């Protein structure tokens, strides 16, 4: 839940990048950090392994400026995607206001996508949050791998697999190149702000 400092008119909210391991969550954040420096309010912190796998989380603080008289501070996090880090994912999800689900377009990762989405739903449920109510955006990442002849899933198939019930905004992306990264985050920020305004009613 966002932190609203009424006196100082500051809202701090938290967006978490969720998804299977090696799906491109950290790459999304790295691109945001590189390309939108003017919005970042501190360095990006990554706690990863030798193999560049996220171990605990990545963290990137951003300042979006004033929205209807309130300074909006954004905290972007990624979770470790590997299955064994379940308790860490729960920790990172605590206090979440919006989620970007980064799915891997590679055919071999189809099952991993489904398992991760199920894991997200379960972890939210344990926090008494519903995946159907929380601001959520789905990203189909690694679309560029098709150019290298890699077997990837069609957008329609991914939509059917992951978004047929959720019916949330979805975006194709190649995080490594930066394609689709900002539209994904922008939509998640928008949904999060609308939702927070319903709860906090600061913008009328």
């Amino acid at each position, binding site marked *: 839940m966002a932190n609203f400092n009424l006196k100082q008119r500051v809202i701090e909210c938290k967006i978490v990048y969720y998804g299977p391991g090696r799906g491109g969550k950290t790459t999304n954040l790295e691109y945001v950090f590189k390309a939108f420096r003017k919005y970042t309010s501190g360095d990006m912190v990554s706690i990863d392994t030798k193999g560049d796998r996220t171990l*605990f989380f990545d963290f990137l603080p951003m300042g979006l400026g004033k929205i209807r008289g309130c300074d909006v501070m954004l905290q972007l996090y990624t979770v470790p995607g590997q299955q064994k880090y379940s308790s860490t994912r729960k920790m990172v999800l605590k*206090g979440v206001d919006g989620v970007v689900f980064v799915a891997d377009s590679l055919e071999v990762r189809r099952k991993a996508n489904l398992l991760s989405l199920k894991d997200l739903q379960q972890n939210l449920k344990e926090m008494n949050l519903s995946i159907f109510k929380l601001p959520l955006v789905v990203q189909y990442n690694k679309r560029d*791998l098709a150019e290298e002849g890699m077997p990837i899933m069609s957008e329609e198939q991914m939509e059917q697999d992951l978004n047929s019930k959720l019916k949330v905004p979805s975006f194709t992306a190649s995080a490594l190149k930066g394609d689709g990264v900002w539209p994904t985050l922008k939509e998640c920020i928008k949904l999060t702000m609308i939702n927070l305004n319903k709860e906090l009613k600061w913008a009328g």
Partner: protein
Amino acid sequence: MSEKEAIKSLIKQGELYFKQSLLNQSKEAYQKALELIESNEKLPNREKLIQVIQGKIKVVEENLNELEAEPDQPELSEELQKLIQKRFAFSKNEETAAFEGAMALAKFGQYEQALEEFHKLLKKGVMPLVAAKNIITCMLTYASPDAAIAQYIQWTSQDVLSKPQLNQVRVYLKSLLEKKGMKAELPPVIKPKKGEEEEEEAVIDISSITMTIPEGPRKGETIELDVSFQMDNNISVVIAADQKDLLKSLKTGTRLTDIQCYSPIGFFNGSGMVLGRTQIQEGPKKGDYLLDIAIDAG
């Protein structure tokens, strides 16, 4: 696709999966390629190809082994530990936030620093029983059962914990040791006087509750409510004035048999009863209702 093309494609997949750090998928692609090569005796340069693919599989396996050997929870820098403490403490209450920060350190495997923080809290007298129990848990995970036992014995000769608290720590440690299949002789603490036993329970802060509505128009629905005030086992939660059906469901005297209470030390199940409600007369929540609930079992 000819067999030759299939082999080529599998090798390319193996290479790209390797680049993506999808090591199992990479190994699988190389193994499929190897099987195809081995089954085709007419393939030119067959022996050399087999050697090359086996070499690639070996490299993938080495990477997999390296990953396997990496510690799940390495010791982080002081800066990162401070970040964890700050970012994973959500309470506005300073002491509760300090507790949450220490808990987060422990959950991220930073036991040494977590222990230091819990010791500080214990010294300050902030939720001493909870701090002591967490110290015991950390020591059992990070150090050894002997270290946890030694810590308990040390406390028995100090005055950081009251006798009832020490008794509870003793029971807690004993149960943890038993779970590990160990039987330890822990020096007993003098039996507390009647009434002293409940001393610590009032200290546990409940930050929020979830409960299943037992009757009325929203019967069976699970709701989450933040706790606004707490005095001993009585809590107050705010219900918006427009939630009329919820107010109808939670009349004075309603028994709540399924409540989960969230506190900095985790959550516990309980039950309770609606004591009453009052309408808020002033401030930003003017018009909303303050619902008082007595929590009577944990």
